[in-house]
Structure formats: C-alpha cells, structure tokens
C-alpha cells in the first residue's frame, strides 16, 4: 500500500500525515508502532531498525488509534491500571491522568457505557500512561468536543514534549500542529514540506 515513502522526523518535532481514507496513513502509524512489518524498505525508530529491534522501542511508543484499545466490560480505571501494570507504571499515574482529562468522576463505569468522546479521553490516557517519547496519533481529536480537546492538549499536544506523528482529516488543524507535513496520494509521497512551504492547492488536490 505504501511505496517509496521516505521521511525523517527530528526528535521533538511533529510530522503531520495528510491524505484521503485508505491512502496508508494508519498503515504508516502501525508500522512505526511495530504492529506491522513493512514488506520492503527500512524503518528506524530512535535509531533502532524495525521490526528486528522492535523490542528496544516498545514502551517508548504511545499509539492512539481509531480503536481505543480498551476492554468494554472493564471500567476506565481498571483498563488504565491494567495498561499501567503492563508498562510498569505506578497506579498514581492513572489517577493523575484521570484528573487531567476530567474522567475521575466516571472512572468506575464500564467503558461500554461511556460516550465516544469519553472513551477517546480514556484512550488518550492509555496512550500517554508511560510517558512515551514518540506519540503516534491517528485522528487524535476524533469525537472530542472543544472542551475535551483543551483537556487532552497538554498530554498529546506540542506541550507534551514528545516526537509526534499524527494523521488528520482536518488539514488546517494538522498544519497548525506540524513541523513537517507529508501528503500521501495512492500510497506515495505527494509532497513533503514544512507547513509554510505547503502549497494549499496541493493539499486540496489530496482530497479531491
């Protein structure tokens, strides 16, 4: 699906990946997350070659995907405590994050009873639980209202201090967040530029 995609993301910066549905944005994130093997080519995360050295970078990655990766029959707190244990993180971090996203009052409710926006807030908590150095954000603000967007901004926004690769269907929002913009068309690079150098016509063409 992805062909001839070559991009280098400096530490601490943000790469925004733009393109239509099915163009390979999520695939790129899953490859970086060590969940998919590329058939060809080289992928290096923090200098470690994937998938051979995947074990060396797991635990430094935070993936926020379309799927919240939360068990529906467990409460938000139970889910986060489970993930915290897998990552060797203390339970106090769970409480800090629940407070940060305003979910502490609903933390005992099963995830299946929560609204999509609330589930997304919990998914953000799960993704940043272990303070990852690289955040892989697939439509991170999906289902979030403006107030919730403000709540999660310190965790997954620029202020988080992590290197970020994000996808968005909102080009303007993505350009505002990015240090580097990758436009994908048919699985290939349509453009790769800093936001100020991105041609608005080229962006429009991606979604035409």
């Amino acid at each position: 699906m992805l062909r001839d995609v070559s991009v280098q993301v400096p530490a601490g910066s943000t790469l925004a990946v733009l393109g239509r549905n099915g163009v390979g944005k999520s695939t790129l994130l899953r490859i970086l997350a060590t969940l998919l093997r590329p058939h060809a080519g080289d992928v290096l995360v923090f200098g470690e070659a994937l998938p051979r050295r995947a074990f060396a970078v797991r635990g430094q990655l935070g993936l926020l995907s379309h799927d919240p990766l939360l068990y529906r029959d467990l409460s938000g707190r139970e889910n986060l405590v489970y993930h915290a244990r897998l990552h060797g993180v203390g339970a106090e971090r769970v409480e800090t994050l629940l407070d940060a996203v305003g979910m502490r009052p609903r933390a005992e409710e099963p995830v299946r009873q929560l609204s999509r926006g609330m589930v997304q807030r919990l998914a953000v908590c799960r993704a940043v639980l272990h303070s990852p150095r690289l955040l892989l954000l697939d439509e991170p603000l999906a289902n979030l209202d403006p107030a919730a967007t403000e709540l999660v901004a310190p965790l997954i926004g620029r202020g988080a201090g992590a290197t970020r690769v994000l996808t968005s269907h909102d080009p303007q929002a993505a350009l505002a967040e990015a240090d580097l913009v990758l436009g994908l068309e048919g699985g290939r690079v349509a453009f790769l530029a800093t936001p100020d150098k991105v041609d608005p016509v080229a962006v429009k063409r991606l979604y035409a």
Partner: protein
Amino acid sequence: MSTALTVLRKDLLLELRGLETLPAMVLFAIVTFVIFHFGLNRDTIDGQLAAGVLTVTLLFAAMLGINRLFVAEREQGGFDAFLLAPVDRSALLVAKATALFLFLVVLEVIAVPAFGLLLLGPSLGPPLLGLIAVLALGNIALAVIGTLVSAIAVQTRARDLIGPIIGLPLLLPALIGMARGAGPLLATHGASWPPGRWVAILALYDVVFALLSYAVFDFLLED
C-alpha cells in the same frame, strides 16, 4: 510472571463481568449428559464407556472456551495493546492457558458431579483422587493446545472452524490418555488410581507441548 498475572487477573475479571464463556461450557456439558442419558437408552453407564462419554463431553465443552479465549483481545484491541507493551509475549500464553485451565476446573467441579448423578453407575467417591489426577493432566493439555490453537484461529476469518480442525488432531494423544486413564476408575468395583502408563503419557504430552507452545507462541503474534 507478574505480566502473566496481570493478564490473568484481567481475563478473570472480564469473565466475571461478562459471564460469556463459563456458563455456556457448563450448560453444554450438562445438556450433553442428558442427551447421552436418553440417547444411550441406559440409566447408568460405567467403565470405558463412561470414561469416553465424560472425555468427549469435557472436550467439546472446552472447545467453546477455546473458541472464545482471544475474542476480547481481537475485537477490543487487546492484542495491539499487549504487543505495544515492553513485556515478554509468552506471558500471554501463560495467562491464557492458566485462565482456560481454571475455566476447565470450574466446569469439572460442576459437570463431574452432574455426570455422577445423571449417568454414572459406580460411586465417584473411591476413585475421586485418581480421577482428579487424570482430569488435571488432561486440563493442562487442553489449556496449552487450546491456547495455541485459539491464538492461531482468532487471526483468521474462519476461527470457529480452525479451532476444531487443528486442535482435535493435536489433542488426540491426550484425549486417548484421559479416556484410557479414567476407564478403570469409572468401572464397577474399579481401580482407585489410573494406570501408570496413561498417567505417564499424559504427563509427557503436557511437558512436550507446553515447551513447544512456549517456543512458538512469540511467532504466532507477529502480523
């Protein structure tokens, strides 16, 4: 080990909340005993026939649990979340096999007395310890192979078919061991301990397949 315990605790909690697997396994076993009761047109059975009926019923009840073992991981993203964590992947095998073993123990705690009431002629009292030994060894085989097969099956579209198609042939030696080991125990005036040969076969099978599963499980989780 702490990772396996974390996953096991989560699995038991999910089952406790959802009650999706265990009640189905127990109900299936008891209904099957009733069907055998009328199908065989006999009030009681004993010996090798009783051991066969018990083994086959427990096997098919176990298949229900095996088919559902990884469903939450696949449908709710548990696989991805686990694979993203910096943990030994074999912990998932240990946790799932332990969960399945515990499901089987609970199933047998209910189903074996029901079998004694509905079908079995001789009393379950004298051979109980021997029967527990055979069932425990059989449960280990079912849990290990079941987990392995379930991990393969859940990644395919035909997961309900893959479980029985791959699992049953692999389990054949263990099932024969269970049935042959339990036969003398369930006979009228039967033995109180299973024949050593079948216990040894079951134990050997458990060790070999546990090690084999541990060795290959990592690769099964690759995309």
